[in-house]
């Protein structure tokens, strides 16, 4: 699914977190959104997902204006969000978390069942812990769970906010391998990351945000070649 963000602004009271951002994600494209802490990446993602109301600007899905939609409508429109806060429902089991991920299509029981089996095949650790409460999982397992849960809604656009944050290197490898596999299925992905190297390796294109604005954009390969990227935009 194609996403177009136009002149997006997000404010928290007087704080201007996002100051006129344009982002495009083509059908089946993986786009990385990079930037230092506080650049406004999460705010951008949350505004697209409908979790916060944009102050100004437009959000379009396949050309259709969905600006300011409530989050539940965005899910129905095919957008799944994985926030950086990694919000598993801690007192629900892994299985219940996944079941909730399929909330919008809960009536297709057979399909949901098949998807859950597919997710368990993809994440064997989750299958082993299906009956455990999500709060007892490790950070890496929780990250896998929130991604698997998001996929249960069969999204056409996946918004991923810093999936590698605070995880051990081997887990980070697994998560990025996972993202590559999802991308190969034709899913559109907007990936926010601090791990610039890994994000650019998996992405087709990238944007760099700085102080609420887009500071650089281009094909992932070109940005990866630009040696000064880190010093200039990502705060070293």
């Amino acid at each position: 699914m194609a996403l177009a963000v136009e002149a997006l602004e997000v404010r928290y009271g007087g704080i201007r977190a996002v100051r006129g951002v344009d982002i495009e994600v083509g059908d089946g494209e993986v786009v990385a959104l990079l930037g230092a802490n506080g650049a406004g990446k999460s705010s951008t993602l949350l505004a697209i997902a409908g979790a916060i109301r944009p102050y100004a600007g437009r959000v379009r899905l396949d050309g259709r204006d969905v600006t300011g939609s409530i989050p539940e409508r965005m899910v129905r429109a095919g957008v799944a969000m994985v926030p950086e806060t990694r919000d598993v429902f801690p007192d629900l089991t892994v299985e219940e978390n996944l079941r909730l991920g399929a909330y919008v299509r809960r009536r297709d029981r057979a399909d949901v069942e098949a998807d859950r089996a597919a997710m368990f095949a993809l994440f064997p650790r989750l299958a082993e812990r299906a009956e455990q409460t999500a709060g007892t999982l490790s950070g890496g397992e929780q990250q896998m769970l929130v991604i698997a849960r998001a996929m249960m809604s069969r999204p056409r656009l996946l918004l991923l906010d810093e999936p590698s944050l605070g995880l051990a290197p081997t887990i980070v490898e697994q998560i990025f391998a996972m993202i590559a596999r999802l991308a190969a299925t034709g899913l559109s992905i907007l990936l926010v990351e601090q791990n610039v190297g890994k994000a650019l390796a998996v992405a087709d294109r990238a944007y760099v945000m700085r102080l609420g604005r887009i500071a650089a954009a281009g094909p992932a390969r070109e940005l990866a070649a630009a040696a000064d990227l880190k010093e200039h935009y990502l705060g070293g």
Partner: protein
Amino acid sequence: MTAAIQFVIDVLSLGGAYALMALGLVIVYGILRLVNFAYGELIMAAGYTLYLVSASPLPWLVMAVLAVGAAVVTGIATDYVAFRPVRAKSVTAVLITSFAFSTLLQNAAQLLISPRPRSIPLPEVFSDTVTLFGVVTPARNLITIAAAAVLLSLFTLAMRRTVLGIAMRAAATHFTMARMLGVPANLVISTAFAISGLLAGTVALLWLGRIGTVVPRVGLEPLLIAFIATVIGGMRSLEGAVLGGFLLAFIDTALNYSLPQDLLKFRDAFTFSLVILILLWRPAGLVRGPATGQRT
């Protein structure tokens, strides 16, 4: 021995009613992080519905269903009138609107019906007594225990087995995240108010059944009981609310049994002192809820 059995029956029947009251309050609090101060009026609404249909030839059970239905409708109306318009604005605004809605309903009852007690129809069985293990006890107590057991089991089952139940538990921890999975906020909130009404309506039948009358301020005591029980049990946990209800009933009943006659009129003072002690020991209540979650 019979004294012990009598004590257990008293605790369980009072505790069953308290637990249902507390659960009805905490189901809404868990999701909105807001106390519904118009909760007692759900009980009042059920009571006046019983009074209003008492002249009809309907069987009591049908009247009871109508009364519970009225509490459910009033619960949902509370959401639409007092919560939904100001929910996103501020906690204070909702406190004020829910107080205002409570007062409005009480005043309506005073004006349209009467400030004086009105008698409500009760089934024969409420005034019967039964002998159980050599203890003579009102049948109403056993009905209360059975009703609480059935409702608590159904409630637990619904929260564990149905998608909506799972969604409600999820919404109680991370409301926005649940919405980002497609769980409709308004459906979850309306369902919480409807369940609140269902529990309050059922409690109303049993609670008002003790005295057989309804007055405009009849909801005040149940609201207070529910509030204290949830505070003891932990505002964030459904299990805590039930536990708090039974514990409060245990304290009340134990004081009833042990206090000398001339101190009995100060029972509530003793109860509150114990509640304060419990809260000094466990300020967040006995059962901690899930660790995270903001107000929505």
